[in-house]
């Protein structure tokens, strides 16, 4: 009846490939080809510029509250590009680059934060779930999608985003547990941006890492430098390939930082020091990746300028499309409630229609 250590099978690792100064570990570099490298750079930049414009638009009253992703571009853009089109991507709410990569028109992002359900409507055939505001509630859906793949013997996988706050929710733990029990092809990617509004990570959990939470559910966890696009890409790719080989789920903790506000309704000076933000600014994923690409000869000054102009024009065009399609019919509240609405609902719809008519309210309100 000895007292002895228990050795468990799942493993916990840390991965970084490209550091803040742009120095790369050549042996680990996934060596994305020039096209894909530039594509990722552009996607990250597009997310950043869209983010900045959204904050301005909120300040001007052109959209509602916005939750920015500044600083987290590598964590979501470099992971989503590791997925194949037939895979599914399940979102939280700080991954605009993922929607863009998966073919959602950019104005969908603006529509969501601008107060239009249209922002949650995927394009035809879309295998992405829309933004989920209630924390961690999207994770069981990712688990369920992966369960469907497994039951149907489809060799696809699911990528599911969440934040550090989500790891305290029951839905996170229940999803990981089911995924472990059924060995489901799902990759949970936690963007640990250090803050859940005002609650720092050390008040969110007593665990040394978030990645280790997978160990309790019987599968591997990996902590990755979430501001390192090469590491995020490499590890997501590896986890997805493992999932498709029936190797089961993976929990990735992408260690990153929310450089901006929680949402535009938030004032972070109330709970965190500027010195901390300054420290993380130096670890910003975009300049880091830019330096690396310049060193590799993939990017140069001229190209940087061209991409910048191109991205800016793309965002501007999306804003124009968003703002020119603001007229919606309030009666649409009834249009998608059920496949076939019951008489009681149609009656209310008529009541609403009559009220709108009386009050002279139509499209555009």
């Amino acid at each position, binding site marked *: 009846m000895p007292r002895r250590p228990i050795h468990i099978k799942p493993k916990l690792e840390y991965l970084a490939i490209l550091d803040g100064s742009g120095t790369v570990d050549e042996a680990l570099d996934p060596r994305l080809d020039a096209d894909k490298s530039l594509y990722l750079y552009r996607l990250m930049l597009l997310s950043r510029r869209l983010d900045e414009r959204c904050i301005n638009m909120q300040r001007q009253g052109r959209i509602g509250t916005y939750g920015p992703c500044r600083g987290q571009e590598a964590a979501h853009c470099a992971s989503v590009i590791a997925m194949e089109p037939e895979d*599914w991507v399940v979102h939280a709410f700080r991954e605009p680059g993922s929607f863009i990569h998966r073919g959602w028109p950019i104005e969908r992002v603006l529509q969501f934060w601008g107060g239009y*359900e*249209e922002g*949650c*409507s*995927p394009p035809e055939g*879309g295998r992405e*779930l*829309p933004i*989920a505001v*209630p924390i961690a*509630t999207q*994770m*069981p*859906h*990712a*688990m*369920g*999608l*992966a*369960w*469907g*793949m497994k*039951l*149907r013997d489809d060799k696809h996988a699911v990528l599911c985003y969440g934040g550090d706050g989500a790891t305290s929710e*029951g*839905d996170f733990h*229940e*999803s990981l*547990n*089911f995924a472990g*029990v059924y060995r489901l092809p799902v990759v949970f990617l936690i963007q640990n941006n250090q803050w859940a509004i005002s609650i720092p990570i050390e008040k969110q959990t007593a665990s040394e890492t978030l990645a280790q939470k997978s160990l309790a559910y019987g599968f591997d966890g990996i902590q990755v430098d979430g501001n390192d696009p090469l590491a995020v890409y490499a590890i997501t790719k590896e986890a997805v390939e493992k999932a498709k080989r029936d190797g089961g789920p993976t929990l990735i903790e992408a260690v990153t930082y929310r450089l901006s506000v929680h949402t535009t309704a938030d004032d972070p000076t109330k709970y965190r020091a500027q010195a901390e933000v300054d420290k993380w600014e130096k670890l910003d994923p975009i300049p880091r990746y830019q330096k690396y690409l310049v060193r590799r000869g993939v990017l140069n000054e001229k190209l940087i300028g061209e991409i910048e102009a191109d991205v800016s024009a793309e965002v501007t065009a999306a804003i124009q499309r968003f703002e020119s399609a603001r007229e919606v019919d309030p009666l649409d509240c009834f*249009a*998608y*409630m*059920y*496949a*076939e609405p*019951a*008489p*009681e*609902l149609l009656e209310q719809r008529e009541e609403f229609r009559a009220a709108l008519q009386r009050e002279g309210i139509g499209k555009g309100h």
Partner: protein
Amino acid sequence: MAQMHMVAALNKALDDALRMDDRVVLLGQDIGVDEGVFRVTADLLKRYGEKRVIDTPLAEGAIVGGAVGLALYGLRPVAEIQFSGFDYQAFHQVEEHVSRYRNRTRGRFGLPMVIRMPCGGGIRAVEHHSESREAIYAHTPGLRVVMPSTPRNARALLLESIRHEDPVIFFEPKQVYRAFREEVPDEPEFMPIGKAQVVRSGADITLISYGAMMRATLEAGDLLAETDHVSVETVDLLSMAPLDTESIVQSVAKTGRCVIIHEGPRRCGIGAEIVARIVEKILDHLEAPIRRITGYDTQFPYFARERAYLPNADRIAHAAREVLAF
């Protein structure tokens, strides 16, 4: 045709659904090897295998949230919550996602899924095993909420719920599970969601109920007919959301008098909604105030007090007599 109780009829519906549509999967705690704590899933694991009839870990939120993912993937999940008293651990999924997906994706992703749960009192069960909370779900936009009352309509309603394009909360009145048998046809039957049934025609008063309370309601009708020579009309709602306003209004317009019976608490209950609709539509047809015989706005008692607590035929008949005498 075979005589069977409600448990066997529900089992037959699940068997039909699994056989007819390979997208149908059942998931829940103890539904496989153990065949369900009430044996509703008897033999189904043996017949269809563990890819169709799935025992899950003990987590209501992941059962319902997982079913959302399965439905999004194109399957037709039928999730079992072992007792409705434990559904609150999944209610956030129902309110935040199950009820909303079609609308928020502008019709791109509907969720054809069923959440089955045994409800109601009367079986001497432990705490949290006897509540009736259909009103909470009926209050949630985006759901269908149904409750059968007999073996035959249980089978037909469940089959309809499984082929329905929107999420259905399927309450099973467990007091009826093995209470009586009824002829159930061999061929699959479907019963539209949102349609009430007039199960007894009459001219003097309308009794409206559903689920397990249909038995006490019918018994009260017999009592009133035999001892008071009253012509009683009885409506079985079957669907709490949507509510069949037309059938309710038609009956009460004819009789002018109405008693509504349910197990769930009175305040903001299904009865309150029925009263509102009658008053809105046909106030001038009413000959007397409407009465509600329901669970009280108390906790459902532990089982030592449940027989005394549950609405019964005497109380229904008593209320009906007062309404008739008004």
